[in-house]
């Protein structure tokens, strides 16, 4: 299988879906002529033209709202937030319109829209540019949240998200855009709500999403090599819908859990997972469910400290050893 970057895998997903369905269009700041701030949409404007790939002014609230309106009448907008951090200026459109309009219409309407872009820290851009709002959005029934950790997942999940008839928020990661993974040449999709066991293990379960899953894989290696502990890594892939069954299967096997996320700890995704596990697998647990999150401060700029602020393999290993 060819090795593809996360970026290219996404790019291919867009191209394939644009070709497949004439209702699909991409919209966002600098996505067209500039090829995207992070080059995720490179070449697509040239190939598909201004009708399908559209540069927008810096008016996130209006163009997310435009997307909702277009989706109501059957279009399939794929809207880029140059950074998910910028979604707060468009938050109302996402929470009240994309998220609630189906309910408030008694099911008469639906909003088949994708909002996508990177949501991560670790790139020296400071607090305003390093938000990870997956927990905020997942709080609202009506929205779906996807956080792919690999190029393979990114492509398969993105294609599914675009075909989904509800609003899907896809959180990418600038630190992964340049990383390569095997991606099949033939078409494939990955369903939302199916976690991926990225590494099998018997002693301990890491539950993670997005780039944290990759960090867990590194931690699992260290644990195996240095401590003889075999950790399982469950990559959630989607936060809502959530594959609770996969989490509980892993817990039943290992009896020990560390939930890892780049999210901030307070009411983060890890809180939900930990609370769910202790409720549904109380008797399976040999130790409390522990959590590793971003250190609890706004994202710091300073380079070495910023690296420490996100979960590192070392911090994860240390946490794992507390219960192993």
């Amino acid at each position, binding site marked *: 299988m060819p090795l593809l970057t996360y970026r290219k895998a996404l790019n291919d997903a867009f191209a394939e879906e644009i070709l497949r369905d004439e209702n699909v269009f991409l919209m966002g700041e600098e996505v067209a002529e500039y090829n995207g701030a992070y080059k995720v949409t490179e070449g697509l404007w040239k190939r598909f033209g201004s009708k399908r790939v559209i540069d927008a*002014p810096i*008016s996130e609230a209006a163009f997310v709202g*435009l997307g909702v*309106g277009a989706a109501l009448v059957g*279009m399939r907008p794929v809207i880029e937030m140059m950074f998910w951090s910028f979604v707060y200026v468009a938050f109302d459109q996402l929470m009240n319109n994309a998220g609630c309009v189906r309910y408030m219409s008694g099911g*008469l309407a639906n909003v088949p829209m994708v909002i996508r872009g990177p949501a991560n820290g670790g790139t020296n851009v400071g607090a305003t540019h390093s938000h990870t709002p997956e927990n905020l959005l997942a709080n609202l029934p009506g929205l779906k949240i996807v956080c792919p950790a690999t190029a393979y997942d990114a492509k398969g999940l993105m294609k599914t998200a675009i075909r989904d008839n509800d609003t899907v928020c896809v959180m990418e990661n600038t630190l992964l855009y340049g990383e390569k993974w095997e991606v099949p040449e033939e078409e494939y999709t990955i369903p939302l709500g199916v976690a991926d066991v990225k590494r099998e293990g018997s002693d301990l379960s890491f539950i993670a999403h997005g780039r944290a899953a990759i960090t867990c894989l590194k931690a699992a290696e260290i644990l195996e090599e240095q401590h003889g502990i075999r950790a399982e890594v469950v990559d959630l892939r989607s936060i*809502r*819908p959530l*594959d609770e069954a996969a989490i509980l299967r892993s817990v039943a096997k290992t009896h020990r859990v560390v939930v890892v996320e780049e999210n901030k700890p307070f009411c983060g995704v890890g809180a939900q997972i930990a609370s769910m596990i202790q409720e549904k697998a109380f008797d399976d647990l040999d130790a409390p469910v522990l959590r590793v999150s971003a250190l609890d401060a706004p994202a710091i700029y300073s380079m070495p400290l910023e690296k420490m602020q996100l979960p590192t393999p070392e911090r994860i290993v240390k946490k794992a050893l507390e219960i192993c």
Partner: protein
Amino acid sequence: MTSSSEEKNGAAELGAKVNYSATPVNQSLTAEDKILFLRQMYRIRRFEQASLKSYNQGKLGGFLHLYIGQESIAVATASLMGKHDHIITAYRDHGHALAVGMGMNECMAELFGKRTGCSKGKGGSMHYFAPDKNFWGGHGIVGGQTPMGMGIAFAMKYRGHKGSCFAFLGDGAVNQGVFSESLNIAALWEIPVIFVIENNRYSMGTSLARSSSIKGSLAARAEGYNIDWELCNGADFYQTRAVLGAALERAHEQNKPSVLEVSTYRHYGHSVADANAKKYRTEAEIEEYKQFHDPLRVWQKTLEDEGVLTEEMATSIDREAKAEAVAAVEFADDSDFPDPSEIFQDVYWEVDNKTEAASTGRYFFGDGAPA
């Protein structure tokens, strides 16, 4: 644009001088058409009064924003809409709903929170919808509907339809940032959206002068975005219809947006819960509008003057509207509330439609949630 900003800002008063009944869009109207418009205004008015009565009887709760005094605008709009023309508005949405053809029954039942309501009792007064009639709500967050309206119009153009979307907002709503953002995008991309500001002079208890710094009019702000704009007097049905019609033509023929500001007045408070309705407006002002600028009265008078309508006809139209409203209350009364299990329906399309996508992962959490 043909006329200058100053001229236009004075246009609403000058309105009377132009014979709007002779504009192409109005000239072709038959007597039946004209009577139908009156009937629709009566239907809205009687529906609103019936809902107010039901509210006072404790049959419904929450907010109830009455459209009485503004009926001409929704009726004129609906009368112009073709297959690919859409409409979206804020929470004061009953008039638009009835004008586009929604039934009183499902509208009243919605207020009562019944499963026979247009939104199955899930949306309430502020959140009516009828996609089959190109009516896209009913939205509770001030200004939030404006970019959605633009998106609907965008889709019409994308698909090559001769279509548009009328996006309504209030005089207070123009100060939500997303509306300004939408003006820029609509103009930049030539989107056939028609923003209609229903200027009833107050946003809750705040007069226009206390909410907005303007140069002559709210619509004149469109000038800075190079968007065509017009003012009109909502109490003059012909004028309102002519101005809306011209904007619709601009949308259909040139894919161009418009901003229209229609001067109007709500006879009641902001909502039924508005205990101050008579504090921030003088009795005299309210009376003045009811007596001399009530679009329903004015239109009825116009039709009588034209010899199209007799007093008896008007009385019977009114009687029918009242009867329909009474029947709607009965219908709503007799309908059932939704079943508690329905709380978890209409959240996700994929779940409701039991698709493959719904078979993977958990969608709902906590008590009572389906696995």
